[in-house]
């Protein structure tokens, strides 16, 4: 029989799979839905941990994640796609090579940050071995790489949401921070996405500009 702890590992692995899906995707609508699925996977992990730790604050966190990040963020971004149909597909060239670079970036990041540093400062966690932190780190680096590698506003916003998902995952695995802080983080991200959608309406891609050089 599968234990709840194994289920947490399985879901965490799925969040990583979702991050690879986002990296390899060029159509914006599937990317938005992909990050919504990732947020729902994250909230599922939070609900299981809430059950295991008997924590009501984690239940609140899970609800906030589903409602704000899983539903409202994706709804907000999709509504902007409907208004700007030409930006449905962001990038069609070089995805395979950037995917490989992303893999290398993540592997290198994990080796340096987790195996060289975090494995030495973090002891066994309530959920089990500290190796579970590999998942949030992979998610973090994939999110950062998505921001760096893409030129489109939508893709960069999704990379940012992915980075924030990684931080929440890291916090719940390591030691859940007080709910008031987690809730503020989730709200901040939501407002940032709303503001980003204002920018999406003005400018949907970001290339070097002469006035901003040097």
């Amino acid at each position: 029989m599968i234990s709840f702890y194994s289920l947490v590992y399985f879901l965490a692995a799925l969040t990583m799979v979702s991050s690879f899906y986002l990296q390899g995707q060029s159509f914006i609508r599937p990317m938005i839905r992909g990050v919504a699925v990732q947020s729902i996977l994250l909230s599922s992990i939070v609900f299981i941990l809430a059950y295991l730790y008997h924590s009501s604050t984690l239940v609140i966190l899970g609800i906030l994640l589903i409602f704000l990040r899983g539903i409202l963020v994706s709804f907000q971004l999709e509504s902007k796609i409907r208004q700007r149909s030409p930006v449905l597909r962001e990038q069609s060239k070089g995805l395979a090579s950037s995917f490989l670079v992303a893999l290398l970036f993540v592997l290198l990041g994990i080796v340096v940050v987790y195996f060289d540093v975090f494995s030495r400062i973090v002891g066994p966690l309530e959920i089990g071995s500290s190796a579970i932190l590999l998942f949030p780190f992979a998610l973090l680096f994939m999110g950062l790489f998505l921001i760096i590698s893409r030129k489109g506003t939508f893709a960069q916003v999704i990379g940012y949401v992915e980075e924030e998902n990684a931080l929440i995952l890291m916090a719940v695995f390591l030691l859940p921070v007080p709910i008031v802080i987690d809730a503020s983080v989730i709200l901040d991200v939501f407002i940032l996405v709303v503001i980003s959608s204002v920018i999406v309406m003005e400018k949907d891609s970001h290339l070097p500009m002469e006035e901003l050089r040097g």
Partner: protein
Amino acid sequence: MTVLEFLLILIPIAANAAYPTRFLKHSTILAASVEVILSLFIMRSPQITGLFYVTALTSIFIVMVSSIYLLSSIYASKYFTDGMSERSIKTYYFMSNFFVASMLFSLVINNYGLMWVGIEATTVSSVLLIMVERSETSVEAAWRYLIIASAGIGLAFISIILIYYDFHTLTVTQILAMPSRITLLSHIIAVIALVGFGTKVGLFPVHTWLPDAHSESPPPVSALFSGVLVPTALYVLYMVYQIAPTMPFYAGFAVATIVASSVFMSYQYRYKRMFAYSTMENMSMALLGLVLGGVGIIGASILLVSHTFAKSAAFYSSGNIFLQKKTKIIGEVTGIWSSMKTTSASLLLSSLAVTGAPPFGIFVGEFIILLRLASLHLYLIFAVVLFFLGASFVAVNYNITLMLFEGKDEGKDVGGVLRVIPLISAIVSLLIGIFALVVMNYAIL
């Protein structure tokens, strides 16, 4: 009293109640005036309570924020007139009120996690301020700021998670009261915070949003960014630094930023961008003073207060020049001393101030920090810093001198308030320097 700190955060937000009316501008100026008075009261009796952590150093930052809030609100009331929609002007006041409230929240709150939330909220509330004029470059600058600062601050959240993991609390007073324990974990906390919050402070090489945002924002926003936002982020970084003082690492980043910003300044051909890089240099010097400790903290405090007024004056003056000349390129602005006397005077005073000319406050601050370096026998850093401060001084003042005195200009200066605000701001910076010198002289005697 705790109520003062509550009021400090709530008053700017309350000013937004006038949003549906045509009195938002007036309510903002009124709120900013009350904030200045409140901040002076708080400065007289800093308090550390359960909810708020206001030391003498914090109260200096509070005065800085409220002063520039007032100056920028008054300046904006005359700057945003021609060619801007009523909606954009309202957006400016509305968001600037939230922006100031979030900075003050970050400064006074007694919790590292909520400090982080406050700093993140400053990004949320200030993005629209950069693009309030809706030019293509300002939208691009706003986007770069949003994505780079948010990603950086996101990394800083890892340091907050680790603080909680290490101490099982995020309350500043409780953590700082614990016996000092320098472990690998505390070092990692300090280093991640340096990279994360350092993005917002504008430390090299994670500074890239700063010159774009400062140069493309309207002048009252540039003044708020350079004068108080960046110092607020520096304050939060310093608070985390106190958990595990890893001086060599922080000092290394500060010196690298001084060197890099000096090099960047040397080839700038846009005056607002040049002042933006100058902000990086000033903040790095302040960071160096804070991490050196001892009198270095006094030097950093004098530098920061003086910088707030001097750099705001520089950006207000730049705004006046842009209003009249419609260009940000140094080479296209010549001989304005003959046509824009007051603005030229404030620009000259502010450029001398930000580059550390005596007797301005930044000179006094930098002098004390250099003395601290020498007293710690850090002679190599002393020499490097002194050399690049000198190079920046030459670069900035050479360009400003060309703008002011080379050739003759036939234009005219801007209206009364727009002329007076930068001049007042520059003179305050001068007075801070003279006051600090008098106090130093008295202390030595």
